[in-house]
């Protein structure tokens, strides 16, 4: 028994590359997840939430609100027109736009509600919670408290018109004191003075379902193609690669043949996943069939190219296994397959753009959640296709370079 264990340890310790990766991988992933999850519980100032604002009132009060919100470290405020802002929210670039409607100042002084509106993307509920938490108190201080104080005082004056002016002044002071002490603020803080308007109809498919289907499908596809790509190295081990190279076939056609078979399997895998989501969870596949086909195809193409790239850069199946596990887990973690992008730190959200997962998941969100027309999804489709082309180009270079050692 000890002899077997010693022999196995000797073999394991002998493969330095594999050993290094098997230690580096968990360390890296622990670091990555600690960074992501750590940011969720940390101070909001370190990870400000993006918010758009549209000031249609253009009064001193509305300018004061903009300036006050802009001074908050927990928010990164950007001003723009309502039309532009709505477009950005609908396209998933921002979680919400705060609209200061025309007549805000007048409404406040006349104690009329309904002039402050938050138009938001319901897919980003978590960010919305953080946003409301950040802006409610400052907004209340600016517009709610003075108006409420005045309202209460006027009520008292109306009910007791004959009260002694000295007593009236004392009552007014007491009201102000109570507001300053925070007692009233705490009660009112829980009452949202902002009208919340979802920009995307809530009756659409659950964003969580889209996240689960798209995120998991892409991640599993990457694992699947890594195995198929390793088929090239299996051909080397059995000697069939050598025999293929002896035939009149151009060596690059071997690579393209592998790519084609991997692509077919990848497309079928995505088709099966989405049909399952339709049958079991009611995901509406009829929303934009051309866009769905294109996003699915380019996702499969990018993933298949990734599998071929892995096979071309590696010289053994062990290397493929280790490299694929490392790269896929990293891409899935930062690209939104494992953790929804909105809750990730800003830096991670920027890094996400280097992953296939990101562009694919966003493409599926464009179709099922944002319901964008095809022409607006085309840039993401083009990027997925570009990633595929880039990976094939790199695979060609490495395959050519490694060819001599492969036979």
């Amino acid at each position, binding site marked *: 028994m000890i002899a077997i264990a010693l022999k196995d340890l000797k073999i394991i310790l002998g493969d330095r590359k594999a050993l290094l990766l098997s230690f580096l991988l968990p360390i890296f992933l622990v670091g990555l997840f600690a960074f992501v999850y750590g940011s969720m519980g940390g101070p909001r100032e370190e990870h400000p939430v993006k918010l758009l604002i549209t000031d249609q009132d253009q009064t001193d009060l509305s300018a004061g609100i903009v300036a006050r919100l802009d001074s908050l470290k927990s928010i990164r405020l950007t001003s723009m027109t309502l039309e532009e802002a709505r477009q950005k929210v609908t396209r998933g670039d921002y979680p919400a736009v705060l609209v200061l409607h025309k007549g805000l100042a007048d409404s406040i002084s006349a104690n009329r509600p309904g002039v402050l509106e938050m138009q938001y993307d319901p897919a980003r509920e978590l960010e919305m919670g953080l946003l409301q938490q950040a802006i409610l108190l400052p907004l209340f201080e600016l517009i709610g408290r003075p108006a409420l104080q005045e309202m209460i005082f006027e009520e008292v004056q109306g009910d007791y018109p004959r009260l002694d002016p000295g007593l009236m002044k004392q009552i007014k002071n007491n009201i102000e004191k109570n507001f300053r002490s925070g007692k009233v603020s705490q009660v009112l803080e829980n009452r949202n003075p902002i009208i919340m308007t979802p920009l995307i109809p809530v009756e659409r498919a659950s964003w969580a379902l889209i996240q689960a289907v798209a995120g998991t499908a892409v991640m599993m596809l990457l694992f699947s193609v890594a195995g198929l790509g390793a088929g090239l190295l299996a051909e080397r081990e*059995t*000697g069939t690669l*050598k*025999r293929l190279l*002896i*035939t*009149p*076939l151009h060596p690059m056609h071997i690579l393209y043949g592998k790519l084609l078979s991997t692509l077919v399997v990848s497309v079928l895998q995505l088709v099966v996943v989405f049909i399952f989501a339709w049958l079991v969870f009611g995901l509406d596949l009829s929303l934009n069939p051309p866009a769905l086909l294109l996003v699915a195809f380019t996702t499969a193409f990018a993933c298949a190219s990734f599998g071929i790239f892995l096979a071309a850069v590696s010289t053994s199946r062990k290397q493929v296994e280790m490299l694929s596990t490392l790269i896929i887990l990293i891409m899935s973690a930062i690209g939104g397959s494992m953790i929804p992008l909105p809750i990730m730190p800003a830096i991670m959200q920027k890094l996400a753009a280097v992953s296939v997962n990101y562009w694919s998941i966003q493409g599926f969100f464009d179709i099922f959640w944002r319901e964008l027309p095809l022409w607006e999804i085309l840039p993401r489709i083009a990027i997925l296709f570009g990633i595929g082309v880039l990976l094939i180009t790199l695979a060609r270079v490495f395959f050519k370079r490694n060819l*001599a050692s492969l*036979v």
Partner: protein
Amino acid sequence: MIKIRNLSKQFGDVNALKKMNLSVQPGEFFGLLGPNGAGKTTTVNILSTLLKPDEGSVTINGLDLLSDPRGAKRLLGVVPQELALYDQLSAADNLHFWAELYGMKGVKLKTRIRQLLELMGLADRQNDRLATFSGGMKRRVNLAVALLHDPDILFLDEPTVGIDVQSRHRIYEILGELHREGKTIVYTTHYLEEVERLCEKIAIIDHGEIKAEGTLESLRQLVQGESEVLVVLDDSSIQTATVEPLPADVRLMDEGLLATGDDVNDLVQKLVTICSARNWKIRDIELKTASLETVFLQLTGKELRD
């Protein structure tokens, strides 16, 4: 005809081939022999267009291998040492796949596959997956793949490794038929008796150089003057001999003891003395002409190669 001129190939500090020259005539059955690391595989890999030489030229039926590798590939059939086949596919599917890579299709393809399966004695198993085949059957499919496009020249690298005697003899018969059809065959193997049996011309390669080239007879003449005496022993004596130390110039063979030298009388006396001293029963004494193994060892030495 294969013409190799001043062929050189270096891997790092190792000179795998040193200005090698070799000619194989059309229709010749040519044996390429050499110990491990002698340069056989490098030569076959260059001839198969898998490797490019650093220097020198190779022409195959007048076609320059380096300037027109794709053209040359159509003239060549290669039987690799590995069973370069797909176990998950049937014998017919394997042949179909490889034939398509040579541009074959339609009736021609089907007819050729049928012919080859019959030639290999595998027609009744053509639809069975290769995973269910014995080693010998797989070796025959391996050979059939190389013959699909009916090449003029056939390279065979250890085509009989790890198979039973019957399968080996079947392969010898098939190779004999191909030779009679006029195909040029270049054969590399570690089994010297195969070369003695099959090849018309033999080259012995070592350290990247051709040490000797010619017919079996001409190679034997290189060690002329040397004689071999074989003392045939009974089975129990051979058993005992396997654990007894022997003089350095006496070798234990399957049948008995073999000694090589220039004086037959001395050799006989020496072997009889050894046997008498150990009470080993002599059943026969044979005077042998120098074998290919003797020539091989004399040219390449007895030093072990890794």
